[in-house]
């Protein structure tokens, strides 16, 4: 794996910053609904039909736990989505630093490393789903 710091080109998109703005808008709207006690609880069609949770089940309850600043409960509702959120926070932070410093990180993975990264992500996804099924989320 190669990691290099390179200069950002003029006019180059800063994706982490764009997605940070989108996340702020969506989280703000969700928090507004939460404060108004009108968070729409939509039943999961997958769970309704099969009786088993889908890979994203528990996400709404996880967000509500976060609004109550209860990180442990939030993690237990859906560890995969929670850890993705933590990763996103680091990505947003990187976006802000990248914008301020006018530099960005350049990652290069070999084919073998790319393959094992995919295996790791797929494995994590399946383990998370298995946890949701066993825990009866």
């Amino acid at each position, binding site marked *: 794996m190669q990691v290099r710091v390179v200069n950002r080109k003029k*006019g180059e*998109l800063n*994706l982490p910053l*764009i*997605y940070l703005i989108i996340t702020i*808008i969506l989280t703000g709207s969700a928090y507004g609904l939460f404060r108004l006690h009108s968070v729409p609880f939509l039943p999961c*069609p997958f769970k309704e*039909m099969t009786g088993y949770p*889908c890979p994203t089940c528990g996400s709404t309850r996880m967000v509500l736990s976060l609004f109550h600043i209860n990180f442990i409960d939030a993690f237990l509702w859906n560890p995969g989505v929670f850890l993705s959120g933590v990763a996103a926070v680091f990505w947003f932070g990187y976006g802000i630093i990248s914008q301020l410093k006018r530099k960005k990180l350049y990652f290069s993975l070999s084919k073998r490393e*790319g393959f094992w990264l995919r295996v790791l992500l797929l494995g994590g996804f399946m383990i998370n789903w298995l946890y949701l099924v066993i825990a009866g989320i």
Partner: protein
Amino acid sequence: MSSCPFCGKEFDGDPATCPHCGQVIHKSGQGESGEQMTPPPAPPAVPGMPVPEGEKSRKIVPFEDPDAGFFNGLFDTIKLALFQPSSFFSTYRFDGSIGRPMVFALVVGWFSAAVGVLWSLIFNASIMSAISRYIPETENAAMSRLGNQFMFSSIGGIVSLVIAPIAIVLGLFIMAGLYHLFLMMVSGAKRGFETTFNVTCYSVSAKLFMVIPFCGGSVAWIYSLVISIIGLSGAHETDGWKGAFAVLMPFVLCCCLVLLMVLFFGAAIAGLAAQN
């Protein structure tokens, strides 16, 4: 065996157009084998945007061409995206700036949403008038409830048009992000995020099917998925199944919405069949 100067795929014989991308082929000579073909003229560069090496043979999307004019470019792009998606996404450039494609998606998406709201108002009004015929005049409370529901749905429709531009932009970024992430998962993202985003913007053209009353929304949704699959595989020059994976996986993961749609349509068709 010859190869197409536009899409680079090989074919047999001496066709006037490429069997893969449909472009007209101009030949420089009549060779016996491995014929040399004249490459297409270099497309005009987008002002201020460097042309990457792999994209030099691609043309500029009419809507992004400053010489085409706003409405001419808009109509030409809609025509290409709707009726020749395969050729459009494999021969035009999609790695440029995201501003102009976003304007395209906003114009087309907002117009389609406005038509959708108009149809729903007409549909609700006709339902209201049909129901009112069967409610006795003494049932004032029921009539007033129906009237309120109609009023709230009308106001909701108009409010949704006001917030539609924000929702369209947010939706474009969310969908393009998911598509690109899933393309990366299967090594299908041969080009940058801009390409995925621009394909997502131009696939909004399918929403124009909303002009068809009743079934227009479903047709638009299904055709936009089809255009997105063709678009991602054409613009990223990757396999069709990778494009399909990237477009369909978000729906599979998001609570199996596709399965729900299939069940819904299956139940509707079964219901109609039972009535007949």
